[in-house]
């Protein structure tokens, strides 16, 4: 991929969280919520990030837009390293990177009208000269996401879940971002509404040339919207590639079992290969080896001792596994 069209280049970011000490003289241990996470996203690209709960996908996303401070690694946005900028220096970049949250019931201020919710970020980033211009802009974006002009003086509780998610999207769009992180934007919605929101996101990408990081646990949804897909397990990116490569030719043992666990319409679920056990808690910082080794049917001695790094197996298709390169 040429360096020019890279909008975002994330290099080896690590985010650790401290664990509770068991004794007062004990050294604080850290858990690796995200370990050595690298990804680059092109303009107008949708990168889907998949994994089970607790695998660090939301932490990775939040670290990328610096809602969390990265412990290691660099985040290069449009040629500038933003990973060490101060809050004030960061402000111009804040409006370029927006976020749509999972729960439309708690991510909108219940005491503000829809108009206020969308006008606020425009005023904050001084993208309009005065309030009436800001409101005009807000109206424009609300119209784009399908909220009627007659509804803009209502409060969030007067809207359904799908409508609220539209408002969240309008709020993110209002500051004219280049990059949006959508963290499980449709998981709280019914399927027929989910389809409406997914179609809306795809339309908006075309219209405003947006790049997305699309986080979801629903693989079918990710397959539907993403250009490229990354699979995370316990804080590590274990495989990524184009959506075709991941879904037609998954190579990492974890990806394979994850895909086979998805219920498919009309297929008896009794035939699926089932992974035994559950996701263990994320490893502490001194852990070495493959995070998946203990549940992997093909693990060897080396998997338990050395951490696998991402290797390119076919053009654009990377996996981190010791035994998968045939």
């Amino acid at each position, binding site marked *: 991929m040429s360096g020019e069209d890279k909008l975002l280049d994330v290099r080896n970011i690590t985010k650790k969280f401290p664990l509770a000490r068991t004794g007062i003289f004990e050294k604080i241990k850290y858990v690796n919520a995200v370990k050595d996470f690298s990804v680059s996203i092109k303009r107008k690209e949708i990168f889907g990030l998949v994994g089970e709960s607790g695998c660090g996908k939301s932490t990775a996303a939040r670290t990328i837009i610096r809602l969390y401070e990265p412990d290691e690694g660099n985040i290069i946005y449009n040629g500038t390293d933003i990973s060490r900028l101060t809050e004030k220096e960061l402000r111009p970049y804040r409006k370029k990177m927006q976020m749509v949250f999972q729960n439309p019931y708690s991510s909108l201020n219940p005491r503000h009208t829809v108009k206020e919710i969308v006008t606020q970020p425009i005023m904050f980033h001084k993208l309009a000269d005065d309030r009436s211009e800001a409101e005009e802009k807000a109206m424009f974006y609300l119209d784009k996401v399908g909220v009627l002009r007659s509804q803009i003086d209502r409060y969030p509780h007067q809207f359904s879940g799908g409508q609220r998610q539209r408002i969240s999207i309008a709020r993110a769009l209002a500051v004219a971002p280049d990059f949006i992180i959508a963290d499980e934007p449709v998981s709280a919605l019914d399927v027929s509404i989910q389809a409406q929101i997914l179609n809306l996101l795809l339309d908006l990408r075309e219209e405003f040339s947006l790049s997305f990081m699309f986080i979801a646990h629903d693989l079918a*949804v990710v397959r539907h919207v993403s250009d490229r897909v990354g699979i995370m397990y316990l804080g590590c990116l274990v495989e990524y590639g184009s959506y075709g490569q991941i879904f037609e030719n998954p190579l990492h043992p974890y990806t394979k079992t994850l895909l086979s666990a998805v219920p498919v319409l009309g297929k008896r679920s009794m035939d699926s290969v089932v992974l035994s056990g559950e996701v263990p808690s994320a490893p502490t910082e001194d852990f070495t080896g493959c995070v998946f080794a203990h549940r992997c049917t093909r693990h060897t001695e080396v998997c338990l001792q050395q951490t696998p790094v991402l290797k390119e197996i076919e053009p654009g298709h990377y996996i981190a596994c010791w035994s998968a390169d045939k």
Partner: protein
Amino acid sequence: MTNIPEVRKEPEYLLDVRELKTYFHTFKGIVRAVDGVSFSLKKGEVLGVVGESGCGKSVTGFSVLRLIDPPGRIEGGEIIFEGESLLKKSEREMEKIRGNKISMIFQDPMTSLNPVYTIKKQICETLELHGGLRGREAHNRAVELLRLVGIPSPESRVNYYPHQFSGGMRQRVIIAISLATSPSLIIADEPTTALDVTVQAQLIKRLYQLVKSNNSSMILISHDLSLVSGVSDNIIVMYCGRVIEKGPSESVISNPAHPYTVGLLESIPKMTGERKMLQQISGLVPNPFEMPMGCSFYPRCELGQKICETEYPRLREIEEEHYVSCHFAGGRNF
């Protein structure tokens, strides 16, 4: 699926629900959460109930157990279980049926266990109440049940408190409790919705095997059509408190007739094949206080015509055992 052979003397159906009506009398008016739902379930059968939030699928499940609290009330219809009418039973008699012959698995594993008692105590409570087991006997059975649902080292885990388990493990415990008395009917209301796909796959598989090996029946309530289609013998699709389509799984999934079912199936992103623009069902579910007079799907329907506005379409058979409630679906005509 091969049919389970008829069981002696018993009536044809294990559960036969006819024209069930459950209404909620709120200050704003009457909500017809379940409005004339009929279905039946044979012994050993798995019935999937699908629909979007608010369609009345959970209320249907609760109604079968008569777990409807005011302002809700079962207004009419019949619920025949093992040949006896549940609606005619006293509260005392119902208590003997709940958790004993019919048990329920709820959606949220985080809130359906009591946080201040150990798992053992909670399983043994059921065993004592309904099975008459005590002490050592109950303990052994509890351990055995935990092993059955796939909890590793059940001997020590049985003394754990709910917070020591993950979501998936808790749901296993709940399944263990619901199976404790070998009920003939299990109502599972979104049993895996709160869980990850890999855990969901394990649990559904396990639940299915346990149900089949006990020759029990199950009503699986879920919003996830793919999940339901994977385990059910028959499916009913609900919309606005009514059954709009029902039939054998394969038939409903491969040959959906009602425009709502068709829309629902087309709005699900697929795991294989080419990616296409998702079809969306336009509009929203109608306000429960302002239900349309005729067909409740009429305002969103593409096939809609004059008659749909005023007359509710009755369920009619379009294929063997496959019923649809639409004036125009399938044969386009009556």
